[in-house]
């Protein structure tokens, strides 16, 4: 049984990774596992990203790692690929202990990673991107010729066909990902990690990818697939590890489990933050969204034909894993990016007077927005808290004369907001960046809520916020609802949605895949929808 020795890196001129005489993967359990992670622990400050994680990936299998946001899957794989160093624990490749300090070590250990955000040079051809770093000599000519031959062989063996001379920027996203995979194989990867690979693919491209992954398995390679989509797990993985909140819940054979079981393990029985609230009394429609579509700069459709309404006096929660279009949806509603379809506020479409920015018009129409990324969008770090507290409302006549902006009035207003929202320390002159995450979020919320909006858009309100502040923020949101405001809440925290929302929508792959009243919702139902399993399947 040939063992893969980690020291056998792809050498100059040779075609790494393609051993014609290599036998298919052993199915006997006596063979050393491809990857063993033993007791991996990692903290980022107060965040415990990986808690004593242990898992074994058998050689020649497709192993899925599934979990919600913050489950720790990406961190774990980043440690395996050398981007982070674990605080504790051991990595074994092929039965031998390895220290992986950087991507170089990982490549030497025959690990290849296909990143979510491609590491490609747009101006290069496919071939140039593939050979970057392993050119095979000072002159490109010889190395490229060998690479061309290798590419052809890869195409024949795995179905990885791509035009070697095509410039990168002309390729569709699916083919670009193929180049990422080829890069890894060209460097001799025996273990391939794919991080949420289908997020940018069309369904057809995703199917093609799965065919390719199966061929890898036939050739004895090991594939680790990180995903939150249960359909993918059920379709091609042999075994699956479920992670939740940094720890492994269980590792099971795919054939012996079901979507429902996996969904339950993913979401778990959490203690819901019970916020006392009376039933909602929704009034008139405040936000009316019809056939909303958003296409990102690379041409991928992020929001596809979304329609829904939000009424005064209700909280509508949008649940879903990050990256399914919620960010783009919020930005379109807040006037921060273009869209197709219609958005009506209080019955009137959102128009933008010439020369003005759409976001300003939105605010003038009594829309308030608590952004998902408070540090980079909701606040300006170097500004004082007082100045951050007027971001978006800096032209308000309440503290603006014809010319002068009355900083004293701004400070006073900020002071009042800080007292009302218990921001600590209650110092309007303090630099915004010096506040803790929770207090920063309170500054943003105070600012948006204090403007008496008709519609409040809220994205990830309690991300990076401590428990005490979370309770405070949740209570404030309920108060606003009771005061007759319409609130659209986007959150990846399921218990937050379940605790606050009156109606729940689930977004998956840019579409609304489910809608239900809070009382009809269960974690299992939501978990399945969030993972892409709709009721019909």
């Amino acid at each position, binding site marked *: 049984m040939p063992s893969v020795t980690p020291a056998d890196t792809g050498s100059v001129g040779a075609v790494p990774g393609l051993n014609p005489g290599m036998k298919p993967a052993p199915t006997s359990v006596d063979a050393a596992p491809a990857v063993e992670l033993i007791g991996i622990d990692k903290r980022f400050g107060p965040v415990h990203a990986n808690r004593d994680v242990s898992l074994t990936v058998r050689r020649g299998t497709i192993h899925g790692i599934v979990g919600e946001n913050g489950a720790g899957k990406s961190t774990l794989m*980043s440690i395996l690929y050398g981007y982070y160093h674990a605080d504790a624990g051991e990595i074994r490749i092929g039965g031998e202990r390895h220290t992986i300090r950087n*991507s170089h070590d990982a490549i030497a250990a025959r690990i290849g990673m296909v990143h979510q955000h491609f590491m490609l040079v*747009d101006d290069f051809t496919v071939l140039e991107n593939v050979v970057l770093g392993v050119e095979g000599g000072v002159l*490109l000519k010889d190395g490229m010729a060998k690479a061309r031959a290798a590419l052809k062989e890869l195409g024949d063996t795995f179905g990885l066909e791509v035009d070697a001379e095509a410039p990168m920027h002309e390729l569709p996203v699916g083919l670009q990902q193929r180049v990422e995979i080829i890069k890894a194989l060209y460097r001799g990867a025996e273990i391939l990690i794919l991080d949420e690979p289908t997020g940018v693919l069309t369904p057809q491209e995703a199917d093609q990818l799965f065919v390719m992954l199966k061929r890898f398995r036939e050739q004895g390679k090991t594939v680790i697939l990180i995903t939150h989509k249960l359909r993918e797990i059920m379709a091609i993985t042999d075994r699956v590890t479920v992670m939740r909140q940094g720890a492994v819940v269980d590792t099971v054979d795919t054939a012996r489990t079901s979507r429902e079981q996996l969904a339950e393990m993913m979401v778990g029985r959490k203690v819901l933050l019970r916020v006392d609230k009376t039933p909602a009394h929704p009034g008139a429609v405040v936000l009316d969204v019809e056939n909303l579509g958003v296409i990102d700069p690379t041409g991928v459709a992020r929001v596809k034909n979304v329609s829904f309404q939000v009424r005064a006096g209700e909280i509508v929660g949008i649940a879903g894993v990050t990256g399914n279009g919620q960010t783009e949806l919020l930005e379109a509603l807040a006037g921060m990016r273009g869209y197709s379809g219609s958005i009506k506020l209080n019955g009137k479409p959102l128009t933008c007077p010439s020369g003005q920015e759409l976001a300003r018009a939105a605010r003038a129409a009594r829309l308030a927005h608590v952004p998902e990324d408070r540090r980079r969008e909701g606040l300006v770090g170097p500004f004082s808290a007082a100045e951050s507290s007027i971001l978006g409302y800096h032209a308000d006549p309440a503290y603006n004369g014809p010319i002068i902006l009355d900083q004293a009035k701004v400070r006073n207003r900020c002071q009042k907001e800080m007292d009302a929202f218990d921001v600590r320390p209650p110092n309007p002159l303090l630099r915004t960046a010096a506040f803790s995450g929770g207090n920063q979020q309170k500054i943003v919320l105070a600012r948006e809520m204090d403007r008496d909006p008709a519609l409040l858009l809220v994205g990830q309100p309690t991300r990076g916020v401590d428990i005490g502040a979370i309770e405070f923020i949740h209570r404030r949101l309920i108060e606003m609802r009771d005061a007759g405001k319409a609130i659209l809440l986007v959150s990846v925290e399921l218990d937050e949605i379940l605790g606050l929302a009156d109606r729940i929508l689930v977004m998956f792959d840019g579409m609304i895949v489910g809608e239900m009243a809070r009382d009809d919702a269960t974690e299992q139902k939501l978990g399945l929808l969030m993972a892409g399993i709709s009721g019909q399947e």
Partner: protein
Amino acid sequence: MNDFFVMMLPLLDSTLRVAVPLVLAALAGLFAERSGVVDIGLEGKMLGAAFAAATVAAVTGSVWTGLFAGMAVAIMLALIHGLAGITYNGNQVVSGMALNILVAGLAPVLGNAWFGKGGQTPLLGEGARFAPIILPGAEALRGIPVLGPIYAEIISGHNILVYITAAIVPLTAWVVYRTRFGLRLRAAGENPHALDTAGVSVVWMRYRAMLICGALCGIAGAYLSIAQNAQFIRDMTAGRGYLALAALVFGKWRPLTALYACLLFAFADAAQIRLQGASLPVIGPVPVQLIQALPYILTVLLLAGFVGRAVAPKASGIPFVKDR
């Protein structure tokens, strides 16, 4: 027709001479910018090299020692720029500007202190400067119609740095597009993260680019003071470093097109004297200042998108920080 030809010969001849420092400096800038480092300090490196070359040549009497001294100074300046911009992640534009100003002040001060001529260096005698080289058979072939005078006047009779420069252009193109170094260089300027994940050090790549940049600027500066002229004079670069930058931008950061841009600008410079007083159909007499400003106007038009698009290397000027 013959008159036109007779007039063009010396014009083209001086075009080549004027173009040499531009070409070298533009290629120097090319290496820097392609690796992702913005370098507006070409002027300062050239000036420093010119001063060092003329000083050392005057003191040692050896022109080659002067050349290497010039290159050494320019490389040192390039490394300071690299330190500020690459290692300390400082503002690269400010750093380039600072070095330009520093050299502009330091050269006359040192020159005056050492030679007492108000900042100039002594005139260089034979052997201490690069002399024109008559290529074999130039005089003999002069009689051949058209090709003879071209060979004798334009191609032959330049100093060795001119011929070296002519060789450096294709060499640069070859290095940038056909070697491993060039591939990685371009990756560092377009997407340094791709290079980083491929296991190649972006920082070391950028420093190497700065070394080459310094060396080329060194030759350019030395050319001014120990080849084209016979001494260093205050501010003798006279904005050529910025002109070379304009040529680089106008040439879209590619060696061959940058060469053409340099030749175009040099031609305009050489022609301006002869064009003085000449009339264009609609405008009337062309002011010499318009011709002087032409390279800069053309570059602005290019940047504005009116003469094609100029896209700088994507990572140019952005300090490389490994973010995860």
